[in-house]
Protein backbone atom coordinates (compact mmCIF):
# COMPACT_ATOMS: atom_id res chain seq x y z
CA UNK A 1 0.00 0.00 0.00
CA UNK A 2 2.39 2.64 1.16
CA UNK A 3 6.15 3.04 1.24
CA UNK A 4 6.63 1.24 4.54
CA UNK A 5 4.52 -1.78 3.69
CA UNK A 6 5.48 -4.69 1.47
CA UNK A 7 3.72 -4.51 -1.88
CA UNK A 8 3.47 -6.74 -4.87
CA UNK A 9 5.44 -5.87 -8.00
CA UNK A 10 2.35 -5.66 -10.17
CA UNK A 11 0.74 -3.18 -7.81
CA UNK A 12 3.79 -0.94 -7.97
CA UNK A 13 4.07 -1.21 -11.74
CA UNK A 14 0.41 -0.53 -12.31
CA UNK A 15 0.52 2.48 -10.08
CA UNK A 16 3.60 3.86 -11.78
CA UNK A 17 2.01 3.26 -15.17
CA UNK A 18 -1.08 5.17 -14.08
CA UNK A 19 0.95 8.15 -12.92
CA UNK A 20 3.01 8.21 -16.11
CA UNK A 21 -0.18 8.05 -18.16
CA UNK A 22 -1.53 10.97 -16.19
CA UNK A 23 1.52 13.07 -16.88
CA UNK A 24 1.33 12.32 -20.59
CA UNK A 25 -2.32 13.41 -20.48
CA UNK A 26 -1.24 16.53 -18.62
CA UNK A 27 1.57 17.64 -20.88
CA UNK A 28 0.64 16.34 -24.34
CA UNK A 29 -1.48 19.34 -25.37
CA UNK A 30 1.09 21.86 -24.20
CA UNK A 31 4.00 20.04 -25.78
CA UNK A 32 2.26 19.65 -29.12
CA UNK A 33 1.32 23.32 -29.15
CA UNK A 34 4.94 24.33 -28.52
CA UNK A 35 6.42 21.98 -31.08
CA UNK A 36 4.05 23.01 -33.84
CA UNK A 37 4.96 26.66 -33.32
CA UNK A 38 8.21 25.81 -35.13
CA UNK A 39 6.72 23.78 -37.97
CA UNK A 40 7.27 25.21 -41.43
CA UNK A 41 3.66 24.72 -42.52
CA UNK A 42 0.66 26.97 -43.08
CA UNK A 43 -1.45 25.00 -40.61
CA UNK A 44 -0.78 23.96 -37.03
CA UNK A 45 -0.79 20.24 -37.81
CA UNK A 46 1.53 17.44 -38.81
CA UNK A 47 3.34 16.33 -41.03
CA UNK A 48 6.53 17.99 -39.93
CA UNK A 49 7.87 20.16 -42.74
CA UNK A 50 11.04 21.38 -41.13
CA UNK A 51 12.08 23.81 -38.45
CA UNK A 52 11.37 27.51 -38.83
CA UNK A 53 11.27 30.66 -36.74
CA UNK A 54 9.06 32.41 -39.26
CA UNK A 55 5.96 32.23 -37.08
CA UNK A 56 7.78 34.52 -34.71
CA UNK A 57 9.76 36.81 -36.97
CA UNK A 58 8.44 36.74 -40.52
CA UNK A 59 6.80 39.70 -42.19
CA UNK A 60 5.78 38.18 -45.51
CA UNK A 61 2.49 38.56 -47.36
CA UNK A 62 1.37 34.99 -46.65
CA UNK A 63 2.96 34.69 -43.26
CA UNK A 64 3.10 37.28 -40.49
CA UNK A 65 5.04 36.28 -37.38
CA UNK A 66 3.90 37.31 -33.93
CA UNK A 67 6.53 40.02 -33.56
CA UNK A 68 5.05 41.82 -36.57
CA UNK A 69 1.43 41.07 -35.87
CA UNK A 70 -0.11 44.41 -34.86
CA UNK A 71 -3.45 43.10 -33.60
CA UNK A 72 -1.98 40.44 -31.38
CA UNK A 73 0.78 42.70 -30.09
CA UNK A 74 -1.81 45.35 -29.23
CA UNK A 75 -3.93 42.87 -27.32
CA UNK A 76 -0.87 41.67 -25.39
CA UNK A 77 -0.20 45.27 -24.44
CA UNK A 78 -3.83 45.76 -23.34
CA UNK A 79 -3.61 42.61 -21.22
CA UNK A 80 -0.42 43.88 -19.60
CA UNK A 81 -2.01 47.19 -18.70
CA UNK A 82 -5.16 45.55 -17.35
CA UNK A 83 -3.13 43.09 -15.32
CA UNK A 84 -0.97 45.88 -13.93
CA UNK A 85 -3.92 47.88 -12.61
CA UNK A 86 -5.76 44.81 -11.36
CA UNK A 87 -2.66 43.67 -9.50
CA UNK A 88 -2.16 47.09 -7.94
CA UNK A 89 -5.78 47.49 -6.88
CA UNK A 90 -6.38 43.98 -5.65
CA UNK A 91 -3.08 43.74 -3.77
CA UNK A 92 -3.79 46.95 -1.86
CA UNK A 93 -7.44 46.22 -1.13
CA UNK A 94 -6.84 42.52 -0.55
CA UNK A 95 -4.14 43.27 2.01
CA UNK A 96 -6.46 45.74 3.74
CA UNK A 97 -9.08 42.99 3.74
CA UNK A 98 -6.68 40.53 5.33
CA UNK A 99 -5.90 43.03 8.13
CA UNK A 100 -9.57 43.71 8.60
CA UNK A 101 -10.61 40.10 8.96
CA UNK A 102 -7.61 38.91 10.95
CA UNK A 103 -6.95 41.76 13.36
CA UNK A 104 -10.12 43.75 13.82
CA UNK A 105 -13.38 42.93 15.49
CA UNK A 106 -16.59 44.64 14.53
CA UNK A 107 -20.29 44.07 14.07
CA UNK A 108 -21.38 42.01 11.07
CA UNK A 109 -17.88 40.61 10.69
CA UNK A 110 -19.26 37.15 9.85
CA UNK A 111 -21.56 38.58 7.22
CA UNK A 112 -18.78 40.62 5.66
CA UNK A 113 -16.45 37.65 5.70
CA UNK A 114 -19.08 35.62 3.92
CA UNK A 115 -19.44 38.35 1.31
CA UNK A 116 -15.69 38.39 0.83
CA UNK A 117 -15.82 34.66 0.04
CA UNK A 118 -18.81 35.06 -2.26
CA UNK A 119 -16.80 35.59 -5.48
CA UNK A 120 -15.46 32.06 -5.06
CA UNK A 121 -18.99 30.71 -5.36
CA UNK A 122 -20.22 33.07 -8.08
CA UNK A 123 -19.31 31.83 -11.56
CA UNK A 124 -17.12 34.28 -13.47
CA UNK A 125 -19.72 34.68 -16.19
CA UNK A 126 -22.32 35.85 -13.67
CA UNK A 127 -19.84 38.27 -12.15
CA UNK A 128 -19.25 39.66 -15.61
CA UNK A 129 -22.89 40.17 -16.54
CA UNK A 130 -23.91 41.55 -13.16
CA UNK A 131 -21.16 44.17 -13.23
CA UNK A 132 -22.10 45.00 -16.79
CA UNK A 133 -25.71 45.49 -15.69
CA UNK A 134 -24.84 47.66 -12.73
CA UNK A 135 -22.53 49.87 -14.70
CA UNK A 136 -25.19 50.22 -17.35
CA UNK A 137 -27.80 51.15 -14.75
CA UNK A 138 -25.47 53.70 -13.21
CA UNK A 139 -24.52 55.05 -16.61
CA UNK A 140 -28.14 55.55 -17.64
CA UNK A 141 -28.94 57.10 -14.29
CA UNK A 142 -26.15 59.64 -14.56
CA UNK A 143 -27.04 60.45 -18.11
CA UNK A 144 -30.78 60.98 -17.55
CA UNK A 145 -30.65 62.80 -14.24
CA UNK A 146 -27.38 64.74 -14.46
CA UNK A 147 -26.83 64.89 -18.17
CA UNK A 148 -23.28 63.68 -17.85
CA UNK A 149 -21.88 60.84 -19.86
CA UNK A 150 -19.26 58.93 -17.90
CA UNK A 151 -16.96 56.72 -19.88
CA UNK A 152 -16.21 54.45 -16.96
CA UNK A 153 -19.67 52.91 -17.14
CA UNK A 154 -19.29 51.71 -20.70
CA UNK A 155 -17.77 48.33 -21.49
CA UNK A 156 -14.08 48.96 -21.89
CA UNK A 157 -10.71 49.06 -20.26
CA UNK A 158 -11.65 50.27 -16.77
CA UNK A 159 -14.71 48.08 -16.51
CA UNK A 160 -12.54 45.05 -17.30
CA UNK A 161 -10.11 46.14 -14.59
CA UNK A 162 -12.92 46.51 -12.04
CA UNK A 163 -14.58 43.24 -13.02
CA UNK A 164 -11.39 41.23 -12.64
CA UNK A 165 -10.49 43.07 -9.47
CA UNK A 166 -13.78 42.08 -7.86
CA UNK A 167 -12.82 38.43 -7.55
CA UNK A 168 -9.02 38.60 -7.61
CA UNK A 169 -9.09 40.74 -4.44
CA UNK A 170 -10.67 37.76 -2.68
CA UNK A 171 -7.73 35.55 -3.63
CA UNK A 172 -5.25 38.13 -2.39
CA UNK A 173 -7.17 38.45 0.88
CA UNK A 174 -7.05 34.69 1.40
CA UNK A 175 -3.33 34.36 0.61
CA UNK A 176 -2.31 37.28 2.82
CA UNK A 177 -4.66 36.18 5.62
CA UNK A 178 -3.02 32.77 5.70
CA UNK A 179 0.33 34.40 6.39
CA UNK A 180 -1.04 36.98 8.79
CA UNK A 181 -2.43 34.15 10.93
CA UNK A 182 1.13 33.06 11.68
CA UNK A 183 2.17 36.53 12.74
CA UNK A 184 3.13 36.96 16.38
CA UNK A 185 1.28 40.02 17.62
CA UNK A 186 3.56 40.47 20.59
CA UNK A 187 6.09 41.85 18.11
CA UNK A 188 3.72 44.73 17.41
CA UNK A 189 3.16 45.31 21.08
CA UNK A 190 6.89 45.38 21.70
CA UNK A 191 7.36 47.98 18.99
CA UNK A 192 4.52 50.07 20.39
CA UNK A 193 6.12 49.89 23.82
CA UNK A 194 9.38 51.07 22.37
CA UNK A 195 7.67 54.21 21.11
CA UNK A 196 6.72 53.44 17.51
CA UNK A 197 3.37 54.72 16.32
CA UNK A 198 0.72 52.51 14.75
CA UNK A 199 1.71 53.42 11.21
CA UNK A 200 5.41 52.73 11.80
CA UNK A 201 4.59 49.37 13.36
CA UNK A 202 2.55 48.27 10.36
CA UNK A 203 5.12 49.54 7.87
CA UNK A 204 8.29 48.26 9.53
CA UNK A 205 7.08 45.09 11.19
CA UNK A 206 3.80 43.66 9.99
CA UNK A 207 4.20 44.44 6.31
CA UNK A 208 7.79 43.28 6.36
CA UNK A 209 6.62 39.96 7.76
CA UNK A 210 3.91 39.75 5.12
CA UNK A 211 6.15 40.68 2.20
CA UNK A 212 6.62 37.20 0.71
CA UNK A 213 2.88 36.53 0.87
CA UNK A 214 2.07 39.90 -0.68
CA UNK A 215 4.51 39.37 -3.53
CA UNK A 216 3.21 35.87 -4.09
CA UNK A 217 -0.35 37.12 -4.10
CA UNK A 218 0.56 39.91 -6.51
CA UNK A 219 2.16 37.44 -8.92
CA UNK A 220 -0.94 35.27 -8.70
CA UNK A 221 -3.19 38.29 -9.24
CA UNK A 222 -1.20 39.36 -12.28
CA UNK A 223 -1.45 35.93 -13.86
CA UNK A 224 -5.13 35.48 -13.05
CA UNK A 225 -5.88 38.83 -14.59
CA UNK A 226 -3.71 38.24 -17.63
CA UNK A 227 -5.49 34.99 -18.39
CA UNK A 228 -9.01 35.81 -17.35
CA UNK A 229 -11.63 35.07 -19.94
CA UNK A 230 -15.06 34.48 -18.39
CA UNK A 231 -15.53 37.79 -16.63
CA UNK A 232 -13.71 39.83 -19.24
CA UNK A 233 -15.87 38.48 -22.08
CA UNK A 234 -18.84 40.61 -21.06
CA UNK A 235 -17.02 43.76 -20.09
CA UNK A 236 -14.63 44.16 -22.94
CA UNK A 237 -14.98 47.15 -25.25
CA UNK A 238 -13.06 47.70 -28.45
CA UNK A 239 -9.73 47.01 -26.73
CA UNK A 240 -9.63 43.21 -26.66
CA UNK A 241 -7.39 41.52 -24.12
CA UNK A 242 -5.16 38.69 -25.29
CA UNK A 243 -7.43 35.78 -24.21
CA UNK A 244 -10.44 37.37 -25.91
CA UNK A 245 -8.45 38.06 -29.03
CA UNK A 246 -7.01 34.53 -29.11
CA UNK A 247 -10.45 33.07 -28.55
CA UNK A 248 -11.82 34.87 -31.60
CA UNK A 249 -8.92 33.61 -33.71
CA UNK A 250 -9.16 30.01 -32.47
CA UNK A 251 -12.89 29.95 -33.06
CA UNK A 252 -12.58 31.14 -36.63
CA UNK A 253 -9.77 28.84 -37.68
CA UNK A 254 -6.18 28.75 -36.57
CA UNK A 255 -2.72 29.53 -37.84
CA UNK A 256 0.65 28.67 -36.30
CA UNK A 257 0.86 32.27 -35.08
CA UNK A 258 -1.45 31.18 -32.26
CA UNK A 259 1.03 28.42 -31.48
CA UNK A 260 3.81 30.97 -31.39
CA UNK A 261 1.85 33.14 -28.93
CA UNK A 262 0.99 30.06 -26.88
CA UNK A 263 4.63 29.08 -26.82
CA UNK A 264 5.61 32.51 -25.48
CA UNK A 265 2.81 32.34 -22.91
CA UNK A 266 3.81 28.87 -21.76
CA UNK A 267 7.45 29.86 -21.38
CA UNK A 268 6.57 33.15 -19.68
CA UNK A 269 4.10 31.74 -17.18
CA UNK A 270 6.31 28.75 -16.37
CA UNK A 271 9.14 31.13 -15.50
CA UNK A 272 6.86 33.22 -13.34
CA UNK A 273 5.45 30.09 -11.68
CA UNK A 274 8.88 28.63 -10.96
CA UNK A 275 10.18 31.95 -9.62
CA UNK A 276 7.14 32.23 -7.39
CA UNK A 277 7.59 28.68 -6.10
CA UNK A 278 11.28 29.23 -5.53
CA UNK A 279 10.76 32.39 -3.48
CA UNK A 280 7.90 30.97 -1.47
CA UNK A 281 10.02 27.91 -0.59
CA UNK A 282 12.92 30.12 0.38
CA UNK A 283 10.85 32.27 2.68
CA UNK A 284 9.55 29.31 4.63
Amino acid sequence: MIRTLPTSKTYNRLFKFYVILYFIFLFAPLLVTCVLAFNDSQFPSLPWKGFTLEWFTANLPQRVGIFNDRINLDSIWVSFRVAFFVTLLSTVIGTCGAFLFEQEDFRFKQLLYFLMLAPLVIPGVILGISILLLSNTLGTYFETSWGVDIDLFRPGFWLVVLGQFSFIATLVTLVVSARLKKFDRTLEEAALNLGANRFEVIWHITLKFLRPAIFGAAALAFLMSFENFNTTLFLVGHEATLPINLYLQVRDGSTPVINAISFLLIVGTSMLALANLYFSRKSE
Partner: protein
Amino acid sequence: MSPVLLWLVLMIVLPQIDLLVMSFRFEADDGKMIWSFSNYLQFFEEPIYWLTFVRTAIYSILVTFLTFVIALPLAFYITKVVAPKFQGFLLVLILLPFWVSELVRVYGWMILLRESGVINHFLIKTGILHQPVEMLYKDSTMILGLVYTSMLFMVVPIVSVLESLDNSLIEAAYDLGANMWSILFKIIIPHATPGIVSGAIVVFMLTLGNYLTPNLMGGKNSLWFTEQIYNQFIASFNWNQGSAFGFLLLLLSSLIVWIGLKLTRQNLKKVVQ
Protein backbone atom coordinates in the same frame (compact mmCIF):
# COMPACT_ATOMS: atom_id res chain seq x y z
CA MET B 1 -12.08 49.21 6.49
CA SER B 2 -13.84 51.55 4.11
CA PRO B 3 -12.06 50.48 0.90
CA VAL B 4 -12.90 46.88 1.65
CA LEU B 5 -16.49 47.78 2.31
CA LEU B 6 -16.58 49.74 -0.92
CA TRP B 7 -15.24 46.76 -2.82
CA LEU B 8 -17.73 44.32 -1.33
CA VAL B 9 -20.79 46.54 -1.66
CA LEU B 10 -20.04 48.04 -5.05
CA MET B 11 -18.59 45.04 -6.82
CA ILE B 12 -20.34 42.11 -5.18
CA VAL B 13 -23.62 43.06 -3.52
CA LEU B 14 -25.03 45.75 -5.79
CA PRO B 15 -24.35 43.93 -9.07
CA GLN B 16 -26.12 40.82 -7.79
CA ILE B 17 -29.11 42.87 -6.66
CA ASP B 18 -29.21 44.60 -10.01
CA LEU B 19 -29.09 41.19 -11.69
CA LEU B 20 -32.08 40.06 -9.66
CA VAL B 21 -34.02 43.25 -10.37
CA MET B 22 -33.30 43.10 -14.09
CA SER B 23 -34.49 39.53 -14.27
CA PHE B 24 -37.96 40.56 -13.14
CA ARG B 25 -38.32 43.40 -15.63
CA PHE B 26 -40.01 42.72 -18.89
CA GLU B 27 -40.68 44.84 -21.92
CA ALA B 28 -44.44 44.90 -22.40
CA ASP B 29 -46.14 45.18 -25.79
CA ASP B 30 -46.37 48.95 -25.53
CA GLY B 31 -42.64 49.22 -24.97
CA LYS B 32 -42.85 50.04 -21.26
CA MET B 33 -40.85 48.10 -18.73
CA ILE B 34 -43.04 46.29 -16.24
CA TRP B 35 -42.47 43.93 -13.32
CA SER B 36 -43.17 40.36 -14.28
CA PHE B 37 -42.17 36.77 -13.99
CA SER B 38 -42.28 36.24 -17.71
CA ASN B 39 -38.50 35.89 -18.05
CA TYR B 40 -38.65 32.92 -15.73
CA LEU B 41 -41.80 31.56 -17.36
CA GLN B 42 -40.02 31.74 -20.69
CA PHE B 43 -37.32 29.54 -19.24
CA PHE B 44 -39.76 26.82 -18.26
CA GLU B 45 -41.85 27.04 -21.39
CA GLU B 46 -39.00 26.71 -23.84
CA PRO B 47 -37.65 23.13 -23.54
CA ILE B 48 -34.27 24.06 -25.04
CA TYR B 49 -33.58 26.38 -22.12
CA TRP B 50 -34.33 24.12 -19.23
CA LEU B 51 -32.96 21.06 -21.01
CA THR B 52 -29.67 22.87 -21.43
CA PHE B 53 -29.84 23.87 -17.79
CA VAL B 54 -30.37 20.30 -16.60
CA ARG B 55 -27.78 18.99 -19.02
CA THR B 56 -25.19 21.47 -17.75
CA ALA B 57 -25.91 20.54 -14.15
CA ILE B 58 -25.68 16.79 -14.77
CA TYR B 59 -22.51 17.06 -16.83
CA SER B 60 -20.93 19.28 -14.19
CA ILE B 61 -21.62 16.67 -11.54
CA LEU B 62 -20.23 13.97 -13.83
CA VAL B 63 -17.08 16.00 -14.47
CA THR B 64 -16.63 16.58 -10.73
CA PHE B 65 -16.94 12.87 -10.07
CA LEU B 66 -14.51 11.89 -12.85
CA THR B 67 -12.01 14.45 -11.64
CA PHE B 68 -12.22 12.96 -8.17
CA VAL B 69 -11.74 9.39 -9.42
CA ILE B 70 -8.64 10.40 -11.39
CA ALA B 71 -7.21 12.67 -8.72
CA LEU B 72 -7.46 10.39 -5.69
CA PRO B 73 -4.95 7.70 -6.76
CA LEU B 74 -2.63 10.40 -8.02
CA ALA B 75 -2.73 12.33 -4.75
CA PHE B 76 -2.25 9.08 -2.87
CA TYR B 77 0.75 8.17 -4.99
CA ILE B 78 2.38 11.53 -4.41
CA THR B 79 1.83 11.63 -0.67
CA LYS B 80 2.24 7.99 0.32
CA VAL B 81 3.82 5.81 -2.35
CA VAL B 82 6.56 7.65 -4.22
CA ALA B 83 9.99 8.12 -2.64
CA PRO B 84 9.96 11.37 -0.61
CA LYS B 85 12.68 12.99 -2.68
CA PHE B 86 10.48 12.99 -5.77
CA GLN B 87 7.47 14.40 -3.95
CA GLY B 88 8.23 18.09 -4.40
CA PHE B 89 9.23 17.59 -8.00
CA LEU B 90 6.01 15.76 -8.90
CA LEU B 91 3.92 18.42 -7.20
CA VAL B 92 5.61 21.19 -9.18
CA LEU B 93 5.08 19.17 -12.34
CA ILE B 94 1.36 18.91 -11.56
CA LEU B 95 1.02 22.60 -10.80
CA LEU B 96 2.93 23.88 -13.80
CA PRO B 97 0.41 23.35 -16.63
CA PHE B 98 -2.30 25.12 -14.69
CA TRP B 99 -0.41 28.37 -14.63
CA VAL B 100 -0.80 28.42 -18.39
CA SER B 101 -3.93 30.06 -19.73
CA GLU B 102 -6.98 27.84 -20.11
CA LEU B 103 -7.25 29.00 -23.69
CA VAL B 104 -3.81 27.66 -24.55
CA ARG B 105 -4.61 24.31 -22.97
CA VAL B 106 -7.89 23.99 -24.85
CA TYR B 107 -6.14 25.01 -28.04
CA GLY B 108 -3.59 22.23 -27.45
CA TRP B 109 -6.40 19.70 -27.22
CA MET B 110 -7.96 21.06 -30.37
CA ILE B 111 -4.73 20.55 -32.29
CA LEU B 112 -4.46 17.02 -30.93
CA LEU B 113 -8.00 15.90 -31.54
CA ARG B 114 -9.33 17.54 -34.66
CA GLU B 115 -9.77 15.83 -37.98
CA SER B 116 -6.43 17.02 -39.30
CA GLY B 117 -4.98 16.74 -35.82
CA VAL B 118 -1.91 15.09 -34.43
CA ILE B 119 -3.57 11.98 -33.01
CA ASN B 120 -5.34 11.25 -36.28
CA HIS B 121 -2.05 11.74 -38.10
CA PHE B 122 -0.35 9.10 -35.97
CA LEU B 123 -3.27 6.69 -36.13
CA ILE B 124 -3.21 6.79 -39.92
CA LYS B 125 0.58 6.56 -40.11
CA THR B 126 0.54 3.42 -37.99
CA GLY B 127 -2.27 1.94 -40.05
CA ILE B 128 -4.84 1.73 -37.28
CA LEU B 129 -7.15 4.08 -39.14
CA HIS B 130 -7.59 4.58 -42.86
CA GLN B 131 -9.80 7.64 -42.68
CA PRO B 132 -9.31 10.51 -40.25
CA VAL B 133 -12.02 10.68 -37.58
CA GLU B 134 -13.37 13.91 -36.16
CA MET B 135 -12.81 13.56 -32.44
CA LEU B 136 -13.58 17.15 -31.57
CA TYR B 137 -17.07 18.58 -31.00
CA LYS B 138 -18.45 15.60 -29.12
CA ASP B 139 -19.82 15.40 -25.60
CA SER B 140 -17.05 13.06 -24.58
CA THR B 141 -14.34 15.44 -25.80
CA MET B 142 -16.00 18.29 -23.99
CA ILE B 143 -15.98 16.27 -20.77
CA LEU B 144 -12.37 15.37 -21.33
CA GLY B 145 -11.53 19.04 -21.71
CA LEU B 146 -13.49 20.04 -18.62
CA VAL B 147 -11.86 17.32 -16.53
CA TYR B 148 -8.45 18.40 -17.78
CA THR B 149 -9.03 22.07 -16.97
CA SER B 150 -10.22 21.47 -13.43
CA MET B 151 -7.90 18.62 -12.43
CA LEU B 152 -5.58 20.73 -10.33
CA PHE B 153 -8.31 22.04 -8.06
CA MET B 154 -9.06 18.48 -7.01
CA VAL B 155 -5.51 17.18 -6.72
CA VAL B 156 -4.12 19.94 -4.48
CA PRO B 157 -6.71 19.82 -1.67
CA ILE B 158 -6.60 16.02 -1.59
CA VAL B 159 -2.80 16.05 -1.43
CA SER B 160 -2.90 18.45 1.48
CA VAL B 161 -5.37 16.35 3.52
CA LEU B 162 -3.58 13.10 2.76
CA GLU B 163 -0.35 14.62 4.04
CA SER B 164 -1.93 14.85 7.45
CA LEU B 165 -3.02 11.20 7.37
CA ASP B 166 -0.87 9.20 9.76
CA ASN B 167 0.82 6.29 7.98
CA SER B 168 0.57 4.13 11.07
CA LEU B 169 -3.19 4.02 10.70
CA ILE B 170 -2.81 2.33 7.34
CA GLU B 171 -0.08 0.08 8.69
CA ALA B 172 -2.26 -0.95 11.62
CA ALA B 173 -5.16 -1.77 9.35
CA TYR B 174 -2.84 -3.77 7.13
CA ASP B 175 -1.45 -5.72 10.09
CA LEU B 176 -4.96 -6.50 11.21
CA GLY B 177 -5.62 -8.06 7.82
CA ALA B 178 -7.60 -5.37 6.06
CA ASN B 179 -7.42 -5.54 2.30
CA MET B 180 -6.80 -2.65 -0.06
CA TRP B 181 -10.44 -1.76 -0.62
CA SER B 182 -11.45 -1.65 3.00
CA ILE B 183 -8.41 0.53 3.76
CA LEU B 184 -9.48 2.82 0.96
CA PHE B 185 -13.10 3.13 2.04
CA LYS B 186 -12.66 2.98 5.83
CA ILE B 187 -9.50 5.02 6.34
CA ILE B 188 -8.36 7.02 3.35
CA ILE B 189 -11.64 8.40 2.03
CA PRO B 190 -13.12 9.30 5.45
CA HIS B 191 -9.92 11.10 6.35
CA ALA B 192 -9.75 12.90 3.04
CA THR B 193 -13.38 14.06 3.04
CA PRO B 194 -12.70 17.75 3.84
CA GLY B 195 -10.22 17.95 0.98
CA ILE B 196 -12.50 16.08 -1.38
CA VAL B 197 -15.42 18.37 -0.57
CA SER B 198 -13.47 21.56 -1.08
CA GLY B 199 -12.00 20.19 -4.30
CA ALA B 200 -15.40 19.09 -5.51
CA ILE B 201 -16.96 22.47 -4.81
CA VAL B 202 -14.29 24.36 -6.71
CA VAL B 203 -14.34 21.93 -9.63
CA PHE B 204 -18.12 21.99 -9.82
CA MET B 205 -18.22 25.78 -9.76
CA LEU B 206 -15.57 26.14 -12.41
CA THR B 207 -17.20 23.58 -14.67
CA LEU B 208 -20.67 25.04 -14.32
CA GLY B 209 -19.45 28.55 -15.09
CA ASN B 210 -17.08 27.53 -17.84
CA TYR B 211 -17.68 29.04 -21.22
CA LEU B 212 -14.45 28.53 -23.10
CA THR B 213 -14.06 24.75 -23.00
CA PRO B 214 -17.63 23.74 -23.92
CA ASN B 215 -17.69 26.39 -26.61
CA LEU B 216 -14.42 25.45 -28.29
CA MET B 217 -14.31 21.70 -27.68
CA GLY B 218 -18.01 20.94 -27.75
CA GLY B 219 -18.73 23.10 -30.76
CA LYS B 220 -22.31 23.74 -31.75
CA ASN B 221 -23.63 20.69 -29.92
CA SER B 222 -22.18 21.62 -26.57
CA LEU B 223 -25.36 23.34 -25.32
CA TRP B 224 -23.80 24.71 -22.17
CA PHE B 225 -25.90 27.06 -20.09
CA THR B 226 -23.33 29.84 -20.00
CA GLU B 227 -23.60 29.94 -23.79
CA GLN B 228 -27.33 30.60 -23.46
CA ILE B 229 -26.54 33.50 -21.16
CA TYR B 230 -23.97 34.82 -23.61
CA ASN B 231 -26.44 34.51 -26.49
CA GLN B 232 -29.13 36.42 -24.61
CA PHE B 233 -26.72 39.18 -23.73
CA ILE B 234 -24.58 39.59 -26.80
CA ALA B 235 -26.52 38.06 -29.68
CA SER B 236 -30.20 38.77 -28.93
CA PHE B 237 -29.49 41.73 -26.67
CA ASN B 238 -32.25 40.58 -24.33
CA TRP B 239 -30.60 41.55 -21.08
CA ASN B 240 -33.64 40.83 -18.94
CA GLN B 241 -33.89 37.28 -20.17
CA GLY B 242 -30.14 36.89 -19.77
CA SER B 243 -30.34 38.16 -16.19
CA ALA B 244 -33.00 35.63 -15.38
CA PHE B 245 -30.75 32.87 -16.77
CA GLY B 246 -27.78 34.25 -14.86
CA PHE B 247 -29.72 34.29 -11.65
CA LEU B 248 -30.90 30.73 -12.19
CA LEU B 249 -27.32 29.62 -12.71
CA LEU B 250 -26.26 31.42 -9.55
CA LEU B 251 -29.11 29.76 -7.68
CA LEU B 252 -28.18 26.33 -9.00
CA SER B 253 -24.52 26.66 -8.08
CA SER B 254 -25.28 27.97 -4.59
CA LEU B 255 -27.84 25.22 -4.08
CA ILE B 256 -25.55 22.38 -5.08
CA VAL B 257 -22.65 23.78 -3.06
CA TRP B 258 -24.98 24.10 -0.08
CA ILE B 259 -26.26 20.51 -0.46
CA GLY B 260 -22.69 19.28 -0.78
CA LEU B 261 -21.71 21.07 2.41
CA LYS B 262 -24.75 19.83 4.31
CA LEU B 263 -24.33 16.22 3.21
CA THR B 264 -20.75 16.12 4.41
CA ARG B 265 -21.33 18.40 7.43
CA GLN B 266 -18.70 20.93 6.43
CA ASN B 267 -18.94 24.67 6.35
CA LEU B 268 -17.71 27.09 3.76
CA LYS B 269 -15.23 28.79 6.05
CA LYS B 270 -13.47 25.53 6.86
CA VAL B 271 -13.48 24.39 3.26
CA VAL B 272 -11.77 27.54 2.04
CA GLN B 273 -8.88 27.00 4.39
